[in-house]
């Protein structure tokens, strides 16, 4: 239960960060998630979910309010992808996801190293 609450909190923080212009928020939030638990199989998906939802929810809201089709087509055209609207949408969501996942991986990995170092220190005296 605590895990779900933590993930929900991470999503909300990530979302709030993005909405206030701190689009990179999923990364430090991912780091924080990773630092809380050493199980990568849990923290990395959790970080990825926080990043993905943090970036995707504003996108969905914008789509509902304004319709993102013309914008997605235009961004694709600017990027040189013709009018393949799916590409910038996918790129946006993937980038948010990667920011959260990378942060969580880094947090988990750092926690593991720190734990090992503490164990070593305990053993050595």
């Amino acid at each position: 239960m605590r895990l779900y609450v933590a993930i929900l909190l991470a999503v909300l923080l990530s979302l709030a960060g993005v909405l206030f212009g701190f689009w990179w928020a999923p990364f430090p939030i991912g780091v924080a998630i990773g630092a809380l638990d050493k199980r990568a199989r849990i923290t990395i998906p959790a970080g990825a979910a926080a990043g993905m939802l943090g970036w995707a929810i504003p996108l969905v809201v914008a789509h509902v309010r304004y319709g993102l089709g013309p914008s997605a087509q235009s961004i694709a055209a600017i990027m040189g992808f013709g009018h393949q609207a799916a590409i910038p949408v996918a790129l946006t969501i993937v980038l948010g996801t990667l920011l959260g996942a990378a942060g969580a991986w880094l947090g988990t990995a750092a926690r593991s190293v720190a734990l090992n170092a503490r164990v070593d220190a305990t053993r050595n005296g």
Partner: protein
Amino acid sequence: MPARRRRIRRLPLLNLAGALAVSAAILYVSFMPAPGLPALGTAFNPATGAWTMAADAQVTSRSFRLAGLEKPVKVVLEKDGTAHVVAQTDHDLFLALGYVHAKFRLFQMDLMRRQGAGRLSQIVGKVAVDTDRFELQLGLLRTAQLEWDALAVGGPGRAALIAYAQGVNDRIEEARRTHQLDPMFTLLGYTPTEWSPIDSLLIKGDMTQTLNFTDTPLVMAMLDKSLGADLTNEWFPILPPNQQSPYDPGPYPKAKQPQPVASMSITPVVAASAQAIHERLASLGVMASRQGASNNWAVSAARSASGGALLAGDPHLHLTLPSIWFQNSIDSPGYHASGVSIPGTPVILIGHNEHIAWSLTDAQNQQTFFYVEKEDPAHPGSYLWNGAWKKYTTLSYDIPVMGGRTQHVDVRWSVHGPVISERGQTTSVWWSGNLPSQDLGVLLQVDRAGNWQEFRDALRGWYSPTHNFVYADDQGNIGLISAGYYPQVAKGDPWLPMPGTGEYDVVGTIPYDDIPQVYNPPDGIVWSANQRQVTKDYPYYIGTTSNFFDPGYRANEIHSVLTQKDKLTAADMQSLQTDTRDFLASEIVPVLLKSLAKEKLTAAETTAVQLLQSWDYRMEINSAAATIWAYFSGWYPYEVFNPWWKSRNVKVAAGEVEGTLEQDLEAWTLGDPGNRAFSAPGVGSRTAPDAQRAAFHKMMPQIAKDLGPDPKSWTWGRAHSRVLENLAQISGLDYGPRADRGDGRTPLAAGDYPSTHGPSWRMVVDWGARAFYGIYPGGQSENPASPWYTDRVDTWFSGGLRPMLSADAAPAFATWDMRP
């Protein structure tokens, strides 16, 4: 420790290293731009990145505070984005206008000021360094600064520019705050700096450069040296060899300035230098477009079915998305005008007010002169002028380059203007665009003029680019005046590079009362389409056929149509704006058919001839004859001139001077079929019909190769299309190509394949009905996600117009209430 355990102990470290590497990579591409790519996080995040264009595309009614306003201002937006600004003071009018322009066109405005100021490299990198260097050499920034310094403190021009700049800056601040900057800023990774009044003057300078900076004296020097002085003089005369229809037939006053008399020779060094400069300018694409033609005309009340004067205008420019134009009306105690503005400037450039309407075409007279400076190693940094060694003035600039080192450029100025080449021969350029003017102030006066006298008096101060200003008023009067600077040289051949030693300098301009102009002519019509405005009797030098008046086909067609009916209507004006009749075809095709009458033809050639026989000379999408003529009109000059070009190794592409060669060929075909030009080296003795037959036989296989074997299927729409190009050169945001009618010689101008130039704004005014109509291709918004990006395109393609309504009459799609 056993090896296996050591490996296990190392795993967390390896894991951390991997996580660090991946995190660093993701953060790097998120924060840092890569070549050709923006910083991905900044660009694509959904809250402040490019996705904000979706919200920006929504325009709704608002009430908001605008810094600097003195009193409330109301802006009414029609459903197509046409903006009506109603203010209680003139100051507030310009401030609100600046805000509105920036709201819809800020990126365009930023690009245009950067172009003039030589600051494109700062946002696009080293690819623009050469262009920036040239612009700083040419001097737009210097001129804009001088113009600003010369503006009277407290005068209306200065006040308008200051208020306008504040409005632009209000929008920049708002857009920053609300993350609503145009997505191009986000994707290019920069935010616009504050707008200054000088930026508005720079944009006016951009237009001057676009319309009248030419290198034709350099081209003529190259022709003189390669084609030969005899043929160059014969084929590129001062006066047009063909029949034209000047709008000002005289009588003319006696010349009050010295005329060019001396004959000059081009040395190999000068010719080589001319070629080097010509190649540089061609590679930069900074010269006036030879396709930048325009039409305008007016009909007096006596010739109008409505009982009021009629006026029509369609300036032909590069067709871009967003358009060069923004449609708006301005209402304040001092101004009541409606029409189109160039975003970045606080004036209605083409439009009408309560009493008068006006439009403009480029006058095309020579405004660029090249001077070869005489130097001596014994006098370094100096040039000989009026018998004395004079030091160059040097101006220094830095060009910031995105992703590269700042470049430094020193620009040397002689009395003639900036030095633009020092390879082999120092050449400076005298360009009227470098004369500090008060042209924006002139336009403000035009916006307020109430009759011909005030209109003409206002234009007395107009310098450059020289324009044919057409006029019609609510009292039934019409007029046309080619206002601007007409440089006169003391002596020499100004169509060639001239010595810079002083004797050949520009000494002044044609007196204002003597420039081409007419008011209420007896036949009740005035018209211009970039043709030479005056006859051979005009006593002043205004330029040659190649520098660079239009061959006159559009003007001839317009004149012909306007004289066919006793009474004309606004619908006639609209119809003439989309007239696709090729005047040259109407002259040449009958001659061609006669030349082919006894010729042995293939089946396809016979069909082609039959198509031409039944053709009405209209370049319509479904016309196969139009395509056959279009091919012939290219092959015929090629057949005649290419052997000369090859045998004399001419360095100038024939296409660059095709307008003049076309006039020659027209004149010879109709009146001198035995001209020696048809008997080029290597082709033997020929006449015009011989060359026509040869061209016809040679072009047929080419058309079949391009469009298939059946001539009936060669419809013009298959060969000819139009593209509206995105201003930032993003091809994915272009409109088209779309099959379209017209060609480079029809009033509905559509030269080239695909055509990217043409009627950038069409306006028709009927004072009898007090009805005003206009349309431009594109839309009011530069945001490609906005419905106002291309919403006017279909109407424009179909030749339709939309009513230009007053603020009171315009149905409001949205209203902005601006508060101090």
